[in-house]
C-alpha cells in the first residue's frame, strides 16, 4: 500500500510536467488548428532560461549585491522566465507560423519541426555540448507520512502546476480574451467580424502556451537538475499525445490527460521492467484513442476552414 501511494506521489509530479506542457499544445492546436511541434523545445528553452535567471539571481545574492531570500529568487525566476519564454513563443508565431496561416497544414507542421531543430542546435551552438546543472533554489526537506516519503519539492511542483491550471481555466472561461480564444477555436474565419484581431489572439495564445511550458521547464529543473538540449523532444511528443487525448478545445481535458499519462507511465514501471515502460504505456493510450478518437472531452467538430 505504501509502495502504491509512493507511486501516486511520483505520478502526480510527473503528470504535472506533462499537463503544463500539454496545455500549450492543446491551446495552439484548438485555436489555430496547428500542431506546434516546436513546443517541446520551447519547454527546453524555458528550462534553460530559468536556469540562467536563477543562476544570475543566486550569484547576485551570493556576491551580496542584492540579498534575496530563496523563495523570492524562486518566484522571480518563474516570473522573469515566463515573460522571456512568452516572448520567444510570440517570435516563433510571428516568424514561423503567421506567414503560413493560409498555407497547407503540412507546411506549418514541418515549420514546427524545423524551429524545434533550430532551438536544439542553437542551444548547442551557444552553450556547447556540456550539460548544465539547475541551481538548487529550494532546500529539500523530506516528510514521512504513514511510510510514504514526500519531499517539499514534489508538493510545491504539484501545487504550483495546479494553480496555473486553475488560473488558465478561469482565464479561458471568464475573460474576454478567453472568450475570443474559444470563439476562434470554433470558427476562426468570422472572428474578425467581431472586431477581434486574429493576429493578436494568435500571439496571446503562443505567449500563454510558452509561458506555461517555461513553468514546466523550471519545475522540471528543480526536480531533475541536469538539463540538456534534447530534453524537450520526448517530453514534447508525450505532451502532444496528452493534448490530443484530452480533446480539442478542452483545458480540463489536456490537464487530466497529462496527469493520466503520468499515472500510466509510473504505474506501468511499478509492475513491469522500466525498459518496457513507454512500450506498454503508449499501447494503452493507443487503445484509448481507438475507442475515443476525439479524446476525453473533444467533440466531433465541423472544421469551418472556408468562408
Amino acid at each position, binding site marked *: 500500500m505504501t509502495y502504491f501511494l509512493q507511486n501516486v506521489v511520483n505520478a502526480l509530479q510527473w503528470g504535472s510536467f506533462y499537463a503544463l506542457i500539454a496545455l500549450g499544445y492543446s491551446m495552439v492546436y484548438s485555436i489555430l488548428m496547428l500542431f506546434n511541434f516546436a513546443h517541446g523545445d520551447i519547454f527546453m528553452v524555458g528550462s534553460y532560461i530559468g536556469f540562467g535567471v536563477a543562476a544570475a539571481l543566486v550569484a547576485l545574492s551570493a556576491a551580496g549585491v542584492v540579498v534575496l531570500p530563496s523563495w523570492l529568487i524562486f518566484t522571480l525566476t518563474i516570473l522573469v522566465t515566463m515573460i522571456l519564454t512568452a516572448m520567444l513563443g510570440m517570435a516563433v508565431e510571428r516568424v514561423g507560423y503567421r506567414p503560413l496561416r493560409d498555407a497547407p497544414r503540412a507546411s506549418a507542421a514541418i515549420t514546427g519541426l524545423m524551429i524545434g531543430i533550430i532551438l536544439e542546435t542553437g542551444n548547442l551552438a551557444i552553450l556547447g555540448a556540456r550539460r548544465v546543472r539547475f541551481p538548487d533554489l529550494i532546500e529539500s526537506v523530506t516528510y514521512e507520512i504513514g511510510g510514504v516519503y514526500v519531499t517539499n519539492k514534489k508538493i510545491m511542483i504539484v501545487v504550483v502546476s495546479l494553480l496555473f491550471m486553475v488560473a488558465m481555466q478561469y482565464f479561458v472561461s471568464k475573460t474576454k480574451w478567453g472568450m475570443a480564444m*474559444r470563439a476562434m477555436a*470554433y470558427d476562426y*474565419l468570422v472572428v*474578425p467580424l*467581431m*472586431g477581434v484581431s*486574429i493576429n493578436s489572439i494568435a500571439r496571446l495564445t503562443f505567449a500563454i502556451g510558452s509561458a506555461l511550458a517555461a513553468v514546466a521547464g523550471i519545475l522540471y529543473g528543480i526536480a531533475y537538475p541536469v538539463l540538456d538540449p534534447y530534453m524537450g523532444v520526448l517530453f514534447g511528443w508525450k505532451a502532444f499525445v496528452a493534448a490530443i487525448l484530452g480533446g480539442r478545445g478542452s483545458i480540463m481535458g489536456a490537464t487530466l490527460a497529462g496527469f493520466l499519462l503520468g499515472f500510466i507511465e509510473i504505474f506501468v514501471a511499478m509492475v513491469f521492467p522500466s525498459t518496457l515502460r513507454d512500450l506498454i504505456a503508449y499501447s494503452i493510450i493507443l487503445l484509448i484513442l481507438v475507442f475515443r478518437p476525439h479524446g476525453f472531452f473533444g467533440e466531433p467538430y465541423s472544421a469551418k476552414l472556408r468562408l
Partner: protein
Amino acid sequence: MLFKVENLKVSYGKIRALHGINFQVDEGEIICIIGANGAGKSTTLRAISRLVPVEGDTRMTFMGKNLLDYEADQVVSRLGISHVPEGRRLFGNLTVTENLKLATFARKDTAQIANDLERVFTIFTRLHERSDQKAGTLSGGEQQMLAIGRAFMSGRKIMLLDEPSMGLAPLLMMSVFEALKQINEEGTTILLVEQNARLALQFASRGYVLENGNLALEGTSEDLLANPEVKKAYLGG
C-alpha cells in the same frame, strides 16, 4: 454619401468573381443587392469587410476614409461596419450573451455596451429568454436574431447582411425584417444581399442587380419591381 465603392474587383485564384462594380450608399438608406446564386453577392460583402483581398485599382471610401487602409477587425471596430455572414456563423460553443459580448471586444464604452445589450434583448425577447443557452442549441430563427444582434453590438454605422431570409419560415422572415427596419430607423444604414428578390425589394428603398460579377441594373425598388427583366429573372414571371 456614406459609402462609395468604385471598380471593385475580386478573384478567387484564376476565377474572377467581381469584374469591377460601382455602387454607393447614402446615410440611413436600406439598399439591397439581388442576384442569382454565384453572382458575387456574398463576395461583395466579404470584400467590404476585408475578409477577401481586392485587386489593384479597387477603391472603397467610407465616410471619407479609404476602407483599404483598415484590417478586417478594424473595419468593424474603427469604422463601425458590421456584417451578418452567410449561414449566420454563430459561435455555437458560446452562450447567447457571450456571442453578443464578444462582438464588443474592441469597444471601450462600457455604459453604452450595457444599453446596447438591453436594446438587443428588447428587440429580440426570445434571445433574452435564452441568454445563458449555448448558441448552437438555438432554432434557425433564433440564430438569425442572434446573428443580427451580434452585428448590432459590434458596429452601428452600417450593417451588411448576407441572405438574412435564408432557411426561415415566412412568418419568421417577416419578424426578422421588422426588426431590421427598427434598427434602421434608429440610425443604422443597411446593405443586404438576397436571393429572395421580392422580399428584399419590398424592404429596401433602392436596389442593384448583380449578374455574373457585373452590376446589370440599378434603381429604386419600385422601378426594379416593375422592370420586366427583373420580373422575368428574379420574381418568378
